[in-house]
């Protein structure tokens, strides 16, 4: 979330699309309802009428996998009806940038596509630079080569008729949504988006969100109270896990993981430290070397020195051109390239696309260690459906671990609040907190590297590892290391810090080895003022629900990021009724003469772009400080599948043609080639669109919740929701067990026949969609059913490689037919 949960209450229009927050983020509705009480409009767009829809002022449906068509139509509506917030667009976005002559979009493809490699060369997506190296701009937005005009041209194809034919959303309802949301494109209104896996889990997942980012920038909804682009994370600490570098391509604090072709720290800094020629751009990532060196000092302590590049060479590197995402790992496992696997706090046999492939992949391992609370389909895969235990050689070790309430530590919510939690009770039996398991494991590994020894021992033997107290994992020691220390006496301004003092905030981190920080964005979370994550002061001087002393929020306790975009170029709030920040420096002769902001922690202390008399300041800074150029990206040349979102059909879809262009599917989508990677488009055997989702009562694959009697009583079995029309077509009665099957697998589910699903009119044909929750598995309960991911495919988004679990093709039939 760029904003945070409480801030939803500030919104004038809440779009819930790609998410069903009433079911899956129930507490969010505390704030959604407050917004509604204040007159906000709630819009729910979902293939099926959900609990969220039941509370919405406007509900409309769309076929799964057609969000870009829907949003592309909204972009066209906003531009053609001049609903965009012009001052914001001109001053704070790259709409005025001029593109080079080579940029083009034709037949569904952007310029630079290499059909053989199935990849884009993005060099033709570059801007025209002036003599100083700054992109040329046309502030009138009239130049046919400027981003704004190219945007207009790109989405001119997204007319109501075509959008409606693709999405199945009736035209009058499209218009209703467009009108309501576009009404927030004025200074004193804010619209927000609540999205979740309904947008991310597609082969166009990132572009779904990019489309909304474009809308939010056009309407001036970024950085303001009640606005933003808000990802509702699918697990209570998944924000924390990405912050801490759980993914293969990032180290803590979003530092890219280098590949083998980046052998030295100097190379790394050169490759990953962006530069700008525009003095008004803060270009915050220019500080990357400080964060990388401070990270290396946390990893390797005193051994990390300038003369050995702080042991950069010891960091594991990726193989160039190779990916190590979830889909890639299980593909490699299936192809017997991986022989050992730690399944820690997850249940991949049910959680990802194409569970039959995953389950078979586990059978190809020599060993697997499962760390979890309860038995699950991964740990017991060898005795699961279709498996012959006698023939499976995988040796499985199960380590029981503690639940969240049985250990102390931090949890980072979707709104980036890092909240400290105390231990409520001791872990049951011999189960242990994850931290203790890791400490014991590493101590043993290190002992083995000492004797008998092993390949490349240096990073193991020299790892700084002092996180235990009385031989047990100490979360405070880890939290302090994550925050970071001064490693020598340091004077900043009039204050001197001693070696061993905690660093107050990341602005003081250095690239010379004099500071450490395990994760720069968490610097300030635990400093000499104490454990800021444990703060519980619920005062709100802001009046807009920032609660600055409740827990702590990254970065530097900034509750709404890009908040400098909430003010006009002179530093005054666009919406004075809900100010996030305001520049209140002294004024002399129409010019600011002192530097002072009030409100939220601003995105940097610098002066605003202009003085009160309208004159430009050379020391003013642009609001989007994490972008090298300081502007919000309406044009986004950094992605693998194009600078503007384009509608492509899901990799399995019910149509033969893409009505927007010649290219049916995302040309650079991630696919795999094993015998388990089968897909069928427009195959009469699999005529219905399928999607997967969640219910309130269960969490993820249900490893925790399926064992809780009250929850399993309320949602005991996997079900498949379908329209009354489809049930009639297939002779299915509500409540009877049916077979749902895809080209990859099948499962039994209870038919839930409902008015809340309706057939779609797609390309003038009637198309049915069904949906299933994915929380179940064969281990428990006996009658619960199995995972909906038996149906989904192992195909992914080219940028994130997330599986496309939200749109695939299935058949539904009565049992025995």
């Amino acid at each position, binding site marked *: 979330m760029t904003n945070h949960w409480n801030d939803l209450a500030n919104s004038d229009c809440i779009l819930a699309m790609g998410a069903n927050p009433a079911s899956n983020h129930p507490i969010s509705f505390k704030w959604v309802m407050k917004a509604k009480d204040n007159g906000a409009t709630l819009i729910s767009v979902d293939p099926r009428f959900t609990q969220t829809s039941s509370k919405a002022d406007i509900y409309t449906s769309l076929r799964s996998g057609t969000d870009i068509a829907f949003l592309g139509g909204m972009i066209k509506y906003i531009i053609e009806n001049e609903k965009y917030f012009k001052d914001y667009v001109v001053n704070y976005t790259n709409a005025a940038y001029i593109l080079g002559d080579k940029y083009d979009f034709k037949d569904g493809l952007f310029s630079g596509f290499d059909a053989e490699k199935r990849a884009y060369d993005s060099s033709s997506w570059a801007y025209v630079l002036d003599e100083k190296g700054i992109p040329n701009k046309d502030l009138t937005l009239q130049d046919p080569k400027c981003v704004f005009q190219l945007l207009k041209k790109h989405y001119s194809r997204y007319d109501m008729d075509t959008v409606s034919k693709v999405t199945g959303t009736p035209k009058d309802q499209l218009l209703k949504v467009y009108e309501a949301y576009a009404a927030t494109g004025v200074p004193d209104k804010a619209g927000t988006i609540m999205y979740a896996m309904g947008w991310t889990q597609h082969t166009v997942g990132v572009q779904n969100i990019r489309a909304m980012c474009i809308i939010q920038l056009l309407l001036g909804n970024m950085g303001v109270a009640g606005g933003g682009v808000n990802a509702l994370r699918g697990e209570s600490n998944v924000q924390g896990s990405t912050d801490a570098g759980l993914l293969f391509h990032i180290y803590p604090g979003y530092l890219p993981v280098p590949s083998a072709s980046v052998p030295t720290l100097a190379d790394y800094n050169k490759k990953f430290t962006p530069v700008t020629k525009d003095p008004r751009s803060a270009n915050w990532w220019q500080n990357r070397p400080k964060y990388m060196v401070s990270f290396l000092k946390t990893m390797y302590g005193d051994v990390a020195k300038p003369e050995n590049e702080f042991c950069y060479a010891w960091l594991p590197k990726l193989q160039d051109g190779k990916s190590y995402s979830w889909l890639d790992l299980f593909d490699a496992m299936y192809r017997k390239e991986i022989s050992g696997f730690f399944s820690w706090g997850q249940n991949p046999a049910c959680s990802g696309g194409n569970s039959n492939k995953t389950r078979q992949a586990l059978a190809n391992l020599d060993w697997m260690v499962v760390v979890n609370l309860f038995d699950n389909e991964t740990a017991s895969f060898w005795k699961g459906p279709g498996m012959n235990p006698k023939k499976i050689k995988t040796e499985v070790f199960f380590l029981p671990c503690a639940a969240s309430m049985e250990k102390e530590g931090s949890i980072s919510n979707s709104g980036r609040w890092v909240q400290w939690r105390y231990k409520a009770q001791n872990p049951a039996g011999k189960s242990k907190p994850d931290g203790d398991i890791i400490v014991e494991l590493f101590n043993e590994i290190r002992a083995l590297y000492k004797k008998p020894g092993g390949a490349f021992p240096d990073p193991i033997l020299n790892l700084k590892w002092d996180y235990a107290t009385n031989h047990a994992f100490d979360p405070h020691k880890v939290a302090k290391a994550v925050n970071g220390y001064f490693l020598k006496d340091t004077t900043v301004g009039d204050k001197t810090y001693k070696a061993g003092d905690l660093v107050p905030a990341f602005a003081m981190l250095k690239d010379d080895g004099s500071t450490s920080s395990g994760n720069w964005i968490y610097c300030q979370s635990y400093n000499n003022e104490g454990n800021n994550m444990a703060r519980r002061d619920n005062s709100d001087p802001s009046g807009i629900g920032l609660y600055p002393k409740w827990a702590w929020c990254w970065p530097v306790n900034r509750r709404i990021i890009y908040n400098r975009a909430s003010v006009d170029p002179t530093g005054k709030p666009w919406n004075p009724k809900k100010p996030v920040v305001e520049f209140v420096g002294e004024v002399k002769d129409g010019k600011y003469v002192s530097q002072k902001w009030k409100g939220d922690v601003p995105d940097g202390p610098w002066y605003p772009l202009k003085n009160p008399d309208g004159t430009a300041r050379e020391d003013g800074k642009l609001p989007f400080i994490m972008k090298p150029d300081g502007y919000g990206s309406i044009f986004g040349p950094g992605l693998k599948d194009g600078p503007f979102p384009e509608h492509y059909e899901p990799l399995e879809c019910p149509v033969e043609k893409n009505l927007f262009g010649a290219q049916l599917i995302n040309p650079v989508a991630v696919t795999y080639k094993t015998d388990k990677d089968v897909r069928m488009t427009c195959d009469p055997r699999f005529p219905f669109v399928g999607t997967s989702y969640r219910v309130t009562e269960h969490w993820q694959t249900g490893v925790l919740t399926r064992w809780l009697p009250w929850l399993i009583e*309320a949602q005991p079995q996997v079900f498949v929701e379908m329209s009354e029309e489809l049930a009639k077509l297939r002779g299915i009665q509500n409540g009877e067990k049916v077979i749902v099957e895809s080209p990859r697998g099948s499962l039994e589910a209870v038919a839930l026949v409902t008015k809340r699903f309706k057939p779609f009119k797609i390309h003038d044909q009637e198309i049915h969609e069904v949906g299933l929750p994915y929380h179940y598995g064969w281990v428990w309960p006996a009658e619960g059913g199995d995972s909906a991911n038996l149906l989904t495919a192992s195909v992914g988004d080219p940028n994130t490689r997330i599986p496309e679990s939200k749109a695939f093709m299935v058949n539904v039939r009565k049992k025995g037919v």
Partner: protein
Amino acid sequence: MAGKSFFIDTTKCTACRGCQMACKNWNQNATVPTKNQGSYQNPPDLDGSTFKLVRYSEQEVDGKPAWYFFPDQCRHCLEPPCKDTIEGYVQGGVVQDEATGAVVYLEKSKEAPFDEVRSSCPYDIPRKGKNGQIVKCTMCIDRVSNGLLPACVKICPTGAMNFGDREAMLKLAQERLEKLKGKYPKAQLIDADQIRVIYLVVDEPRKYHKNAIASVNPGFIRKLLAGGLRKRDWV
């Protein structure tokens, strides 16, 4: 009798079922084996270990889907017919708490004929618990008399469940009704002057649940009973 009341604003209920779980948790109630019967609603009905149940009802309004949620529970009638029925057979089987107005069944309620007690309830609430005692929502009398909110109210994230002094709840309910009337002409408070659990609905009450509204005015039943006419005689 002032006492306490609930105000349940169904327009804010998202069917998260926090109330249903909190009720089970506070009362440490067991579960029954369930199956999905083509609905989200489970257990299918109130039972000896389910005192609070979110009921789901799919409707179509002007050709558009609507999904009504009704967190069902004992209404704690101002003049509870079940109390009269039980007391017709046994003393000390039920109390009506003076301070709150909560109607609470005691162990001796098992000496009253269950079917008769159940059918005397205009909302079909009483159920037979383990050991034969008749059971239902207690208004969390143990919590409320210690200054806490009922468990279902405490957990509700949206403001659907409210609890407090009766006058305050009636006022809140009336204000909310006034606000919604314009948009929903059928908006109403159900049986507000008879019971302590005041539901606000925006459509005909029976579209939410067949027993959302009393089939016979509970005051009327009480008068019949007071007149010596037992329900079994006039049904």
